[in-house]
């Protein structure tokens, strides 16, 4: 099988977890270490870990002095200053790839600063959510200044974008373009002559091309709709900038599902030399052709594979892992198979996880298999060199441990995050997701109460324990033959009432060997 972008689609606000029944492909992606999913802000509650990471990252960057290259002011100055744009191209066919790299710089920096390796920038889908996202409009959050709030904006929280600017008809027209330069702005011309070299001056030849459908309307007009800094060349000082451009970037990826980018070497071979920073402060200088695929850059929108020549078959290690995972997902209660061993524990007492008392289910496992996972060298995240394909193959080459939390009966699930930990002897609602015992968080969407005479749906979840096991036990000399799988419900909105409960029917831990 090949791994498509659709395979990596995960549930809305889930980090490090995946819904089994409806989304086994997503779990495969999770187990393989596929890049984090960029999600719509509309899917995220104010205290969602993704939003919290963005809030924390922005706050940390804002606290740094402007002469620190990895600071809010320094990054924004790359885009523009009070009088003009700086390095960013507008009205120029480098508009889309340049801004993709610009966003990536923020995403990687926030991952590093917050130690939240699953972080991916959320996007503001203004077609479906016409008002400014709530996380950005309140001056305070939890009683402290909100780093995502920008006081100079002109748009009020109740102002709405119109159909003419962001409606589905506009998006359909944009996606209906088949030529890259009509869609994403044309090549620059200077003094009447088109670009004829890879000289860097062509990159920020502002407004030297014909603005395409995407840049002309939703891009420009959403900037101006928000107003204040967003309507100026200093727009990158407003934290909503990245969410707006993330949606522009998503539409480019969406367009790529059916259309090919320009193949002109003047476009594909241009390098943005020393335009961006790596998180360590060194320069990041990608070529346009390095920026085609979100997945190779460490994030995904969960979209279909791009048009064009068929993608190369995945490496053998990934194909082998996929086969084993397919077997595993297709066969609940599987005790073993080639390269697979599972260990199950029944929730015989029908114990329930509550906010005050997390559920703990001990699963007896083979000590040697646990040791193999713990002692296998931790693979690279891929962030260091932006080589995510190699990192993914490396991850697929090692032993993995997955937990399947099956047939979960829930209450008040619409107001609850369910956090999963292992072997944490001090677990409570206050235990942060940065705790080393943390595995992942899942949410349950939709109705699960069994309305209309239908039986209540009992979803199942899978979480990848591999990273947590390595973190906890990688340096241990001996390992126990037991994993304590824990579920801690946490309220999403305190005003909406207490957190709900969860009672799984059983928990399985599966070891998958290469």
């Amino acid at each position, binding site marked *: 099988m090949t791994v498509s972008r659709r395979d990596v689609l995960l549930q809305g606000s889930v980090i490090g977890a995946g819904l089994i029944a409806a989304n086994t492909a997503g779990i495969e992606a999770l187990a393989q270490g596929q890049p984090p999913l960029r999600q719509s802000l509309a899917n995220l509650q104010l205290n969602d870990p993704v939003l919290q990471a963005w809030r924390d990252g922005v706050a940390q960057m804002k606290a740094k002095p402007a002469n620190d290259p990895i600071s809010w002011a320094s990054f924004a100055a790359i885009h*523009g200053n009070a*009088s*003009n*744009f700086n390095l960013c191209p*507008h*009205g120029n066919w480098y508009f889309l790839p340049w801004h993709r790299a610009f966003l990536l710089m923020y995403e990687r920096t926030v991952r590093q600063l917050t130690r939240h390796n699953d972080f991916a920038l959320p996007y503001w889908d203004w077609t479906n959510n016409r008002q400014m996202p709530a996380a950005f409009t309140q001056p305070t959050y939890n009683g402290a200044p909100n780093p995502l709030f920008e006081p100079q904006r*002109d*748009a009020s929280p109740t*102002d709405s*974008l*119109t159909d*003419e*600017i962001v409606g589905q008809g*506009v998006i359909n*027209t944009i996606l209906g*373009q*088949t*030529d890259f*330069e*009509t869609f994403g*702005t*044309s*090549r620059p011309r*200077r*003094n*009447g002559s*088109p670009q004829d070299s890879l000289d860097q*001056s062509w990159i*920020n*030849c*502002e*407004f*030297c*091309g*014909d*603005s*395409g*459908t995407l840049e*002309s*309307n939703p*891009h*420009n*007009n959403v*900037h*101006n*709709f928000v*107003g204040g800094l967003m*309507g*100026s*060349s200093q*727009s990158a000082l407003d934290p909503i900038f990245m969410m707006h451009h993330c949606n522009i970037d998503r539409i480019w990826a969406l367009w790529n599902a059916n259309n090919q980018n320009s193949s*002109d070497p003047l476009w594909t071979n241009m390098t943005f030399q020393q335009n961006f920073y790596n998180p360590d402060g060194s320069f990041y200088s990608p070529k346009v052709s390095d920026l085609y695929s979100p997945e190779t850059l460490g994030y995904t929108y969960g979209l279909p594979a791009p048009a064009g020549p068929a993608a190369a078959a995945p490496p053998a290690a990934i194909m082998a892992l996929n086969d084993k995972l397919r077997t595993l997902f297709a066969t609940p209660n599987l005790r073993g198979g080639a390269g697979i061993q599972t260990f199950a524990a029944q929730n015989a007492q029908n114990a329930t996880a509550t906010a005050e008392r997390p559920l703990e289910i001990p699963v007896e496992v083979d000590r040697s298999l646990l040791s193999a996972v713990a002692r296998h060298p931790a693979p690279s995240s891929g962030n260091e060199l932006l080589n995510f394909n190699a990192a993914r193959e490396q991850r697929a080459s090692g032993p993995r441990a997955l937990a399947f939390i099956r047939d979960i009966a829930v209450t008040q699930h619409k107001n609850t995050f369910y956090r999963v930990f292992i072997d944490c002897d001090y677990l409570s609602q206050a235990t942060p997701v940065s705790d080393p015992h943390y595995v992942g968080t899942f949410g349950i969407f939709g109705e699960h109460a069994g309305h209309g005479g239908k039986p209540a749906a009992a979803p199942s979840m899978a979480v990848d324990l591999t990273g947590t096991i390595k973190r906890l036990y990688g340096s241990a000399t001996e390992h126990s033959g037991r994993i304590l799988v824990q579920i801690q419900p946490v309220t999403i909105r305190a005003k909406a009432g207490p957190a709900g409960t969860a009672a799984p029917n059983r928990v399985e831990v599966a070891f998958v060997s290469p």
Partner: protein
Amino acid sequence: MGNRAFLITGVVLAVAAGPAFWDTSVAQNNSPVATVSSPAVVTAAAAPEEGIVSQPPRVIVSVTGFRPPRDGAVEAVVKAQKDDQPEQEIGRFGIFPSTGFTAADSSGARRFGLPLPKELAGSKALKLGVYLVPFRGSGEGAVLELGGAEIR
């Protein structure tokens, strides 16, 4: 002079000249200047082929000057008319950043490409009306000056 320097000069000139830089009283029929109360009207003719790329037919609108509104934000709505047929909208664009600029000639203009619908695709000439429409506030004070338009 580089294009960037040229634009910076343009912005400075516009700011220095202030509200009198454009005489908005000329914004009337067949004027290349649009305000919220009066569209710019120009004729787009088919351009000679440059032989660079093969693209779907579109109109390129050149904007040589812009002054943002005193109040609110505006977008430009472009409507095309072929012969005596009714005007039809072919696209919209915004000026970003929303700051004033002026270009002394067409080489410094900002150009916006708008795909032509099938029924207008083969046209040799189209009458274009470019309307400034506020999407927040009154849009009063906004001025958009066209340097021309062509069909490619």
